[in-house]
């Protein structure tokens, strides 16, 4: 990467290994790309001639769509390779799938996979730049970047803020990536949820852990609710969704414990009436749809930086 952008990574595997400066670079670039969505012609030629493969080996609609739109708006050629149509169900290994795709000379491979570390495995076997679009319960870096972008836009800064992440922390790649990113950017991070969903040693990541949501919300600037996997009750870690909503759901009454100007976030898709009440999700302090909008811009920034976009930004 040449020019003013301080970003020296070949891949985007996680927030753990980015510097605060690199994160800020992505956020600043994201602000620039955000404006493109407002144009009548939502396309710039920056990555013309580049190929981006979305290798989605775990079901995902919104993240894949967001990456796809991001690639298209940069004029890159985007190709989707998803689990249902994939050869991985025929017994081909991930490495074989990846090297076959790599033989078609893509510039960037965006991978979503159910198991932690899979993007790392990819980097050892292919030449293309790798973007982690979620690996198991490990990391989901572009989600953390778009969350940071949203917080910064609404609060004017990130340093010094108190951010509460509520829900299934243990299974959440969103939580891990946000913890790494927000701590690097100087925020105070609290995690809250049923004790059975708080992973052992979470404090070692520099966060304060709460097993009730109320004390965690006290004085918070940002409240980030996580999705509960309804179908699996998060592996039997709590009795049922009714009790979960009663004890850990974000209701207007609970939200009142946070600062009066606190914002409410959710990575989606939301379970209305479970982890978040409809009044809060649709209320004036919810920035959930802004997160989605910024997701496209942030992913454009990531593809731009890794794709070696050399065209001058207009």
């Amino acid at each position, binding site marked *: 990467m040449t020019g003013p952008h301080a970003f020296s990574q070949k891949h985007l595997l996680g927030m*753990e290994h980015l510097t605060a400066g690199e994160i800020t670079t992505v956020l600043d670039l994201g602000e620039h790309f955000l404006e493109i969505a407002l144009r009548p012609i939502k396309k710039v030629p920056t990555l013309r001639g580049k190929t981006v493969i979305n290798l989605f080996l775990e079901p995902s609609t919104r993240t894949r769509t967001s990456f796809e739109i991001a690639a298209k708006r940069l004029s890159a050629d985007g190709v989707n390779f998803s689990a249902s149509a994939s050869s991985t169900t025929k017994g081909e*290994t*991930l*490495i074989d799938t990846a090297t076959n795709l790599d033989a078609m000379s893509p510039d960037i491979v965006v991978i979503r*996979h159910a*198991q*932690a*570390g*899979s993007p*790392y*495995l990819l980097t050892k076997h292919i030449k293309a730049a790798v973007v982690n679009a979620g*690996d*198991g*319960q*490990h*990391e989901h870096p572009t989600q953390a970047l778009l969350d940071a972008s949203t917080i910064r836009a609404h609060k004017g800064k990130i340093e010094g803020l108190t951010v509460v992440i509520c829900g299934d922390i243990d299974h959440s*790649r969103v939580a*891990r990536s946000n913890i790494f990113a927000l701590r690097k950017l100087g925020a105070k991070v609290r995690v809250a949820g049923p004790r059975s969903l708080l*992973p*052992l*040693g*979470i404090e*070692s*990541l520099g966060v304060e852990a709460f097993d009730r949501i109320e004390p965690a919300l006290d004085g918070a600037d940002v409240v980030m609710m996580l999705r509960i996997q309804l179908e699996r009750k998060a592996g039997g870690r709590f009795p049922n969704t009714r009790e979960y909503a009663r004890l850990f759901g974000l209701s207007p009454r609970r939200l009142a414990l946070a600062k009066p100007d606190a914002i409410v976030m959710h990575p989606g898709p939301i379970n209305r009436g479970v982890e978040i009440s409809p009044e809060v999700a649709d209320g004036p302090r919810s920035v959930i749809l802004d997160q989605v909008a910024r997701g496209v811009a942030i992913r454009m920034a990531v593809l731009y930086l890794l794709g070696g976009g050399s065209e001058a930004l207009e």
Partner: protein
Amino acid sequence: MADVLFRGGRVIDPARNLDASADVLVQNGRIARVESGLAAPAGARIIEAKGLWVVPGLVDMHTHLREPGQEYKEDIETGTAAAAAGGFCAVCAMPNTVPPNDTRAVTELIVRRAAEVGKVRVYPIGCITQGQKGENLAEMGELQEAGCVAVSDDGKCVRNSEVMRRALEYARGLGLIVIQHSEDTDLSANGPAHEGAISTRIGLRSQPAAAESVIVARDLELVALTGARYHVAHVSCAESVRLIRDAKRRGLPVTCEVTPHHLTLTDEACATYDTNTRVNPPLRSAADVAAVREALADGTIDAVVTDHAPHSPVEKDVEFEQAASGMIGLETALALCLELVRANIITPAALVARMSAAPARILGLPGGSLAPGAAADVTLIDPQVGWTCDPARFRSRSRNSPFGGRAMHGQARLTLVAGNIAYEKEKPVG
């Protein structure tokens, strides 16, 4: 076979409380004399052992040789060649072969193949239950008659408490020791990493140390009930160590073992998602490693074993959570344990005891001592020589070691089995 005189080495024979400079004379496949200033008989080969250790042949009571059934990973020929190169004169073959060693015919096959192609002694271990399913007892009596020296469902835990109770009772009647792979599989849920701060950071599914220790705790109560001899395989965590230490104080007939990798690597090694670090039980926290080191030194842990578990790239060049558990260890065990000697965690004599005398005693095997008259199983160790671990050069058919590139010190120079040279390190050319 020629007679051999080891001259001027440091003779370490913990079974006889000996650690002194002496000569060792091997005649007709047996230890003839251990004294200073021995003259070489006519025709004997003289091996200058100054600066080297002459010890009773190392015994690995926990090896996976993969034959029958998975010869693409290892077989008795390659596995015993790796053992000899690692300084081992005897290995115990765990029964999770394909089919498992739960019947006399499989035991007999292993014994026969070992006689045909084995470089070192091979002692089969039979299954506790048929098919390692944890339901019906295997034919332990016939397995024993055919040559099995212990029973274990290694790789699988006997979960049902009633089955475990009856297995202990039945084995006791036969004079067989029961070796348990301690893992509460509900708690572990096949978690590929140790549950703690590292797994939380790197996002790998994980299992708590308690998945191991709850089974150890239960089994110790069953040992108290049955009076059977019980051995805990690959102890890896502080809680198991504490339970076993207490049980020994109570006088229960319990012994246990630890692997070199649980003594030298922590769960931090998994942070790069190197599938060669995936092993069961998983690599544990630094506190657990400190606890097993302490237990090795104070004798709570009786034996060091390799848990040599060969896997091919088919099982290992995949996502971490899909990778097979296990790593090879026959050709690295000695050097890794010598790291503990250099760090003053364990004395040379204690190390030799854990790698030779103790496993022989636990299983009632010949060997484990250089007493005159004993079969001449001898390992000549250079405790200092530096080398770089390169799995590509191993004699094992598999390469799944996480220690590639590690700077090692110390290795076997020569391995003598019943007076025959099973392995001799070639001299550097020029």
